[in-house]
C-alpha cells in the first residue's frame, strides 16, 4: 500500500455519512479504472462517462447497506461496473434510462466477501495486465470475449469458429497464467 493511502473502511464511513468527500475519494481511487473499462466495452467516451456517473451514484445511494468489515468496496465497485458495462453492450439499442436498476446476484454475493486492501486490488490489476501481455493471441481473445463482452465458452467457440474443447483449453491456460501472476506458486 502506498504511504498515506487509507483502506476502504474510512472511505465507506464517509460515504455512509453522506459526505461528498467520500464520493470524491472513491472516484479518485477507482474512477480511472472504471472509466477505462467502460470505454473499452462501449468504445464511446460519452457513454463511458454516463456509465461512470451511474455507477458512482449507485455507490453513493447504496453505501449504507455496505459493511466495510465484511466486504471489499473496490471489488464491489469493479464488479458492478462490469455488470453495468455488459448490460449496455448486450443491448445494442440500450436506452440509458430504461436499464434495469435492480441488484443482480453478483452484487448481493459480493457484499458478503472478505475485505481486501484497495492496494492489493490495484496491484493485482497491474499484475494481470503484465501477465495478459504474455498470453498467446488465442488466449487473449477468449479472455477478452468473456470479460468485456460476457460470452460463454460455447458462444466464444461459435465466434472464433473453433472447437469448444479448444476454447476451453485456451481459457483454462489463460486463467492459470493470470492466477499465477496474482498468486505466484499456486497451482490448482
Amino acid at each position, binding site marked *: 500500500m502506498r504511504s498515506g493511502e487509507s483502506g476502504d473502511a474510512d472511505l465507506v464511513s464517509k460515504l455512509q455519512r453522506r459526505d461528498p468527500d467520500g464520493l470524491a475519494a472513491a472516484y479518485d481511487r477507482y474512477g480511472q479504472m472504471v472509466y477505462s473499462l467502460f470505454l473499452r466495452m462501449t468504445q464511446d467516451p460519452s457513454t463511458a*462517462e454516463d456509465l*461512470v456517473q451511474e455507477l458512482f451514484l449507485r455507490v453513493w445511494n447504496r453505501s449504507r447497506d455496505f459493511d466495510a468489515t465484511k466486504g471489499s468496496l473496490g471489488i464491489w465497485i469493479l464488479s458492478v461496473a462490469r455488470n453495468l458495462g455488459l448490460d449496455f453492450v448486450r443491448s445494442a439499442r440500450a436506452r440509458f434510462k430504461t436499464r434495469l436498476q435492480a441488484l443482480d446476484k453478483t452484487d448481493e454475493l459480493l457484499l458478503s466477501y472478505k475485505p481486501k486492501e484497495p492496494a492489493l486490488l490495484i496491484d493485482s490489476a497491474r499484475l494481470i495486465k503484465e501477465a495478459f501481455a504474455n498470453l498467446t493471441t488465442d488466449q487473449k481473445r477468449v479472455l477478452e470475449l468473456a470479460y468485456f463482452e460476457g460470452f460463454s465458452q460455447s458462444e466464444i467457440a461459435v465466434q472464433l*469458429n473453433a472447437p469448444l474443447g479448444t476454447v476451453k483449453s485456451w481459457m483454462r491456460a489463460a486463467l492459470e497464467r493470470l492466477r499465477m501472476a496474482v498468486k505466484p506458486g499456486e497451482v490448482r
Partner: protein
Amino acid sequence: MTHPEMNDVYELYVLGVLEPEAVAKIDEHVADGCSYCLEHLQDATLLASAMVGLAEPQKPPRRLRKRLLDSVGQPRRRSNLWFAVAALSAACLALAVYSFWAASSVRSLQNQIAEVRDERNELRSAVEILSQPGTRTVQFGVAENVPHGRAFVTPSGGIVFVGSQLPRIAADRAFELWLIPRQGAPRPAGVFRPNERGNFVNVARRSVNVSDLQALAVSVEPLQGSAAPTTTPILVVPLA
C-alpha cells in the same frame, strides 16, 4: 462435478459466463455452505475484479469528477463575487449544454426516423417479394432452441430470410447470407443482425435462378460483410 474439476471454472462463474449446468453445480455447493467453494470463489472474485487491468488505462475527462460531485450537491464556500462569476459561468455552461443536448436529441430523433424508414422499406421489399407468383418457401430448424425460420425464394424477385435463435455475436460482427450454387463460389446475399429479441429478417433483392441453387448458408462476418465466407457457416439450408 468434483472440486478439482471446479478449480478451472470458479472465475468463469464469477464473471457470469459459465454454462448453466456448471453454474447449477457450484450453486448447490454454495447453498450447502461448502467452504472449499467459498474460499475459491473469493480468490476468483479478486482475480475477476483485477481483470479490469485488461482495459488500457484511459484518463477520464476532468469535467466528469465535477459532474459527479455536483450531482450529489457538493457544498461550496466562495466569496460573493466569485459566486456571482461562477453562477454566471454555470448559467452559460447550462445554456451551452442544453443547446448541445437539444441538438443531440434532434440528431437522435433523426436517426430513429431513418431507422424506422429503413425498416419500413425493408418490409415493403419483403412484401413485394412474398407476393410474387412462384415464391418457394423452405423451412429450416424445428426446435425452439436452435436457429429456425423460413426462406422465401422468388425466381424473379429475390430472397426473404426470416427466423430467430441465431447465436449471439460480438458487436463488431454480423451474419451474412450466402447463395450456394451447384457449381462455383458462394455469392453474398446480404448482411444482417438479429434484433433485441433475437429475430431477424434479411431481404436480398437479386435475381435468382432457383434451379442453380443448392443451398442458402449463414456465416459470421465483419459488419461490412465479406466477398467470400471467412468462417465456417453456422447454418446451411438445403434447397434441394
